[in-house]
């Protein structure tokens, strides 16, 4: 088989995998800390991406044209705003519903996600049309035979993996991370030990949402397009990836993200009757994996009533 072709598929798969992993990480954090599935995650990241896009429009309007400064501005606005929105949803929607059955929270966040999507579609100027996201990264490419390695793909993957690494560092090496893990393991004991429960929950939601917003910006920078429905499929895939990797486990989310991307790529490349069915293939394999290992590939160390 052509080495260049395989390399190209690998590169595509890694980029997709990084994006899915970033979204999956959010789902897994929220579940780990609060035992809640926040289905509005995908649409919140879409909102964050649109805020980033608006920030870019604003920067263009006031005359800032250096692409790196624009990129910095977009990232700051988008990640910051999404983190705040995530925390706000936690404070006013998820925390008050703590005593309710989990299904209610899932449904309510699902509805919230739909509401956010429709608000953007209806009230953002020309919201129902896809928007051309600027290509701010250098687009030089190295051609090795059939394989075209683009600078922007490399930058995006490195940045994405770096962010995941950073998140890992925060969770495992800082006091905040320790507090998050403590709350995830046993809420009552954590409170007794003096950890500010509300603050930890808000911080977790802010962190998870901010990270997902980066995935949205990555999506926008790579495909040069954002639309109001992008959160739907990203959220769905991120959720499936988090589940198949093991809900509640950070490494599981990353594994799940890359696994899903790998399945999609394999499906598109190897299935003879066309890539139209690659999603069917990927989800079918996920279902099979779930049947085999219901708690995910890397199960939570302490099993919880789910």
């Amino acid at each position, binding site marked *: 088989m052509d080495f260049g072709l395989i390399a*190209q598929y690998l590169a595509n798969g890694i980029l997709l995998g990084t994006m899915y992993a970033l979204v999956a990480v959010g789902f897994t954090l929220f579940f780990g800390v609060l035992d809640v599935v926040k289905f509005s995650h995908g649409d919140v990241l879409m909102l964050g991406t649109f805020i980033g896009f608006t920030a870019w429009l604003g920067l263009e309007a006031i005359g800032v044209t250096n692409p790196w400064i624009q990129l910095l501005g977009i990232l700051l606005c988008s990640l910051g705003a999404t983190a705040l929105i995530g925390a706000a949803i936690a404070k006013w929607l998820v925390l008050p519903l703590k005593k309710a059955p989990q299904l209610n929270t899932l449904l309510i966040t699902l509805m919230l996600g739909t509401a956010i999507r429709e608000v953007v579609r209806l009230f953002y100027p020309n919201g129902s*049309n896809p928007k051309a996201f600027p290509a701010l990264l250098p687009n030089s*490419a190295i051609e090795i035979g*059939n394989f*075209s390695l683009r600078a922007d793909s490399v930058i995006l993957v490195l940045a994405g993996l770096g962010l995941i690494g950073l998140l890992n560092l925060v969770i495992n090496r800082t006091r905040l991370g320790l507090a998050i893990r403590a709350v995830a393991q046993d809420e009552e004991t954590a409170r007794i030990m003096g950890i500010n429960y509300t603050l930890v929950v808000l911080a977790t939601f802010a962190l998870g949402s901010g990270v997902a917003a980066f995935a949205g910006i990555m999506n926008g920078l790579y495909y040069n*397009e954002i*639309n109001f*429905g992008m959160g739907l499929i990203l959220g769905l895939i991120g959720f499936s990836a988090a589940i198949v990797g093991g809900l509640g486990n950070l490494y599981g989310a990353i594994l799940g993200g890359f696994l899903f991307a790998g399945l999609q790529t394999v499906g598109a*490349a190897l299935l003879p009757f066309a*890539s139209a069915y690659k999603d069917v293939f990927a989800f079918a394999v996920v279902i099979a994996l779930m049947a085999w290992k219901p708690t995910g590939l890397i199960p939570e160390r302490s099993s919880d009533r789910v």
Partner: protein
Amino acid sequence: MEFNMRNKFHGIVLAATACAGLALATSAPAKETVQLGFLGPLTGGNSSVGLGGRNSAELAIRLRNDDPNSKYTYELDALDDECKPNVGVQVATKLATNRKVAGAVTHYCSAVAMGTVDVYHRFGLPATIWGAVLPDITYGNDYPEITRVNGTMINQNETAAKMMTGLGYKTFAIIHDTTDYGKGHFTYLSKYLGEDGAEVVGSFGVTSDQQDFTAELTQVKALNPDVVVFAGLTPGGVRVRQQMDKLGINAVFEGVSGIKSDAFFEGLGTDLAEGTMTFLEGAPAEKLPGGAFFLSEYEKAGYSTPPEAYGPFAFAAMNLLIDAVETVGPDRKAIVGYMGKVQDHQSITGPISFDDHGQNTVALITGYVAQDGKWVVWEDSDYAKGIRQLPAAK
């Protein structure tokens, strides 16, 4: 004395009422209002075409209402089908079950039109297609209610194949969406390319809202075709062209009529869109028999969005429907009967003649190339004259 005053007062009121009544009675009898429907994608990725069509249909109604010789006052009932078959069926049913609606001008998206033909037939609502090009919409059934003023993809792809092979291109890779629209284009284009001696080296089916085409395009790159064809609508076309560039594929990009819109340039920018080929039924508005009139009236009406590719057809379809109502009255059965006999009916797109399946026998297809951010008729373009070269030109 009081009795007299009251009497007088009553008398004055009575007289005043009588005068008012007489005045009303002698004023001209108000024209009966007839409702006519319009369906198209008013939101979503194809909304620019849908809105252009709606504005054109509304223009037709407005101009006819301003005409003192018209027998009825017309009202537009425009509904959004979102280019989704399930939504289309819902709004079509809503329109068809409203007894006040005498007829409708329907659909740009072929997938939606295929879903709704049964609805219109069931309720006997005359429906004239203004933009959908799938042949089966008129040829796949025997419903007299369904008529179409624009051409079908059979003619479009025959001309496209002839033109592209005529320019010297031999190998084609076709990416098509898996709706009836994309599959239909793929079937006919492959057939005619084969007849003209070209080879389809690969074909890929994709979902109509697919975001990521890198897997398909990686395979396309390995096949190294002269031309990459996209059979689908503008949002997908924008994405495919963009990702072709990311993977460094150097081939001519050709799209079917679904990408011929201004939104194509808005999504891609002038540079990436440059040199894209596409084909469309009929001819650009300026070259149509009634094109200049249509464009000037559209401009005067001050719509915020352009008529796009199918605006003139929507205008012609609505005018045809209005002519039907003027001739036989706002009765659905009578209008269907009228439509069955339409031959050489004058319109801005040329004479309309329906065959036994309600299809307008228009064989005019025009090729376009994207030049400097605009769609230019091929024969008029710098490419045809040799001043510019298409990528991978032979």
